[in-house]
């Protein structure tokens, strides 16, 4: 009975998911004026991040800018999550129309994508431990020291250009600051808004008041002249009407460089209430009930992410089990060119990292001439995970096939069965029974490996963990919760496998 319930849940999840895929492709068919915009919410405050009081709502100065642009152009907005370093490749494969996420306008980037006119100009700042404040003022002071920053950022290029500095790169700001606090780093060089939002309230850290370089943010826009023109037009209008300035004032981001560039020297008198809101939350010591409340508030996000992880895992495993059996049968029983091809395929898949396969299927496949296939993130994830695990399952099956004694095959053949009948009725059923434990093992491992798909614009459990942890700076507490969720996701399948194993086992109780 319990098992039937599990099966029902699985069927429900799978069918829900299929209908979702179908529905989304239908929606794609009757496209309205919708602007798909991308950012990495993990990069957090003050750019684009979930509101801690209402996690379904994205806030941040860039979220407000894109909202204002949408209003100007009368577009509906649709948000697409992608990892920061992959925002440009993601747009090149056509996943979204624009990306706005503190992307600096640089000559090499300008060669591959369109940028809007700048919407924000700032500088880099050094952050050090409070007790090091007097030691470091310039990059030259950091000769031989470890300095962290975001990977792929302008700050990274500045650091790489300074000889003697050991550069450490991070995917999220929060981690670089946490490493700085525990002295794994001597300093962090980062865009001023990040310094303001991550370090200014932290008593252990000190921002060095010397600006470095010039950082110019632009919106990355897909290859569409009209859209580029419209967005530039809308931006200019927002600047002229003071709406953009209002956003920066709210977030405490108006600075001298901006004042010079936009020729707007008037002093700010509006209260930066957004910034103050943010800082207030950071400073407060939380009581136990507050912490529980805070964790509880993450439940819907973690729940949604867990469902996605489960859907991904189950669908990929179904693909792996079916395709793996096919591979194993071809390898063991097909005549030679085919069996060698199957062997080579299995070796190729097993011998290369899943991550590279994911990148290939998602980012490279669309660019291959003639056969370019563009899969949506969910499908790409299932195909990658499914094919990867199929290679492993194929070897499990092969071991299973070999474990069935030769006498079984001979008995079947001598009864007049054909090769196909012997396989279908005698060999495969016995082989399957043997491979239930290793397949369960692989499935548990797949549930965890599914976290790799966060690199292709999928928000599953691990990605959601990264996002929540970098917002709340609580890597430990959220980490434990997420670990427990993974454990719970795997357990029903361990039970299911035990049941199936028993069901298929030769030792039947009773009779």
């Amino acid at each position, binding site marked *: 009975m319990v098992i039937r319930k599990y099966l029902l849940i699985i069927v429900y999840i799978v069918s829900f998911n299929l209908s979702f895929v179908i529905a989304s492709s239908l929606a794609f068919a009757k496209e309205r004026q919708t602007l798909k915009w991308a950012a990495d919410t993990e990069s957090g405050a003050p750019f684009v991040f979930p509101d801690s009081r209402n996690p379904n709502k994205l806030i941040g100065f860039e979220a407000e800018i894109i909202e204002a642009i949408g209003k100007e152009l009368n577009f509906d907005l649709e948000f697409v999550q992608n990892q920061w370093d992959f925002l440009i490749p993601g747009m090149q494969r056509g996943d979204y129309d624009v990306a706005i996420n503190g992307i600096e306008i640089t000559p090499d980037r300008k060669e591959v994508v369109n940028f809007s006119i700048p919407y924000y100009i700032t500088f880099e700042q050094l952050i050090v431990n409070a007790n090091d404040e007097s030691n470091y003022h310039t990059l030259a002071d950091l000769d031989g020291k470890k300095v962290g920053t975001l990977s792929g950022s302008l700050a990274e290029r500045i650091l790489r250009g300074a000889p003697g500095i050991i550069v450490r790169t991070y995917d999220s700001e929060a981690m670089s600051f946490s490493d700085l606090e525990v002295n794994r780093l001597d300093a962090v060089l980062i865009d001023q808004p990040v310094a303001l939002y991550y370090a200014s309230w932290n008593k252990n850290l000190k921002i060095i008041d010397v600006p470095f370089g010039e950082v110019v943010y632009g919106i990355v826009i897909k290859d569409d002249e009209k859209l580029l023109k419209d967005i530039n037009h809308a931006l200019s209008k927002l600047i002229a009407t003071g709406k953009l300035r209002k956003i920066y004032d709210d977030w405490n981001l108006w600075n001298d460089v901006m004042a010079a560039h936009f020729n707007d020297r008037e002093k700010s008198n509006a209260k930066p209430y957004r910034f103050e809101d943010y800082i207030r939350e950071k400073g407060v010591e939380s009581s136990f009930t507050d912490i529980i409340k805070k964790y509880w508030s993450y439940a819907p996000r973690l729940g949604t992410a867990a469902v996605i992880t489960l859907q991904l895992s189950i669908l990929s495993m179904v693909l792996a089990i079916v395709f793996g059996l096919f591979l194993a049968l071809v390898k063991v029983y097909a005549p030679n060119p085919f069996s060698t091809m199957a062997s080579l395929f299995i070796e190729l898949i097993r011998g290369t990292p899943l991550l590279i396969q994911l990148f290939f299927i998602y980012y490279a496949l669309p660019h291959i001439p003639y056969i370019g296939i563009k899969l949506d993130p969910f499908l790409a994830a299932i195909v990658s995970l499914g094919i990867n695990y199929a290679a492993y399952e194929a070897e499990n099956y092969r071991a299973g096939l070999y474990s069935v004694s030769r006498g079984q095959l001979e008995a079947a053949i001598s009864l007049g*069965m054909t090769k196909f009948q012997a396989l279908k009725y005698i060999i495969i059923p016995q082989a399957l029974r043997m491979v239930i434990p290793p397949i369960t093992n692989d499935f548990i491992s797949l549930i965890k490996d599914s976290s790799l798909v966060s690199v292709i614009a999928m928000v599953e459990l691990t990605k959601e963990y990264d996002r929540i942890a970098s917002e709340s700076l609580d890597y430990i507490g959220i980490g434990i919760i997420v670990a427990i969720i993974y454990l719970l996701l795997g357990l029903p399948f361990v039970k299911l496998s035990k049941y199936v194993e028993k069901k298929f086992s030769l030792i039947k109780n009773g009779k």
Partner: protein
Amino acid sequence: MQQSTDYLVEIRDLHKYYNGQQILKGIDLNVHRGNLVSIIGRSGCGKTTLLRCLNCLEILDHGSIKISGISLSRNKESVEEIIKISEKASKVRTNVSMPFTGYENVPSIDEDFQVKAQTLRKKVGMVFQSFNLFPHKTVLENVMMSQRIVKGDSEDTAMLKSIQLLEKVGMDKFIDRMPHQISGGQAQRVAIARALAMSPQVMLYDEPTSALDPELVEEVTDVMQNLNKEGMTQIVVTHSMNFARNASDFVVYMHEGVIIEKGTPEEIFNNAKDKRTRDYLKIFQV
């Protein structure tokens, strides 16, 4: 008992190589319809290989086999070619390979040969030393399976026939048991019923009682003797001199791939002409 024209099994100049080694060196043997023939001889003399050739679990390399009107023969390849083929085949054979694996592109093993081999298998029932019951199926299902799958009989027809056959071997009380729940002697009786389910013209037994505890041997040989009375043609490879002497119509003594002597049990056990036969029988003190 001997009607000189009514041979059910005719073997002519049968040769078989394994990995370049010659195992059968020209076997000639005729078996009359309704006879029980025991093949005896030292381990490695080729008696099991001979039996497996009759069922096309091994592919004969030269000569011919004729069973109940179906004739399989190979005469095209030279000895050198045959040796080469057998070496190649031994390399690709695994415990999951099918009987014809390694014989691809051999001219004389064409489609026609393979179709005939398949037809021949259906006329021949095989009982193995290690029973080889299907462990994932019940006793009844073991007997029903080939009728359903190969013959395409309806479930009712197959079940009725299976129960009758299981009755005949005294296993009708155990139809719902799994193979691991019955004794070796019982398993071998089920295996006989399973082979009979295909209504074979001849039954082959490869050391059917060697894996059994001594006290279980008789229940199996009783079944075989009953079949003999009913007129079933049976060829038995055996190490049991008792059985060969008391249950057979004919006894064949093989030595290093050739038949040395054949005759009635009386002729072989009491008046063996060849020294090699007598030396072998001496081991058993008979």
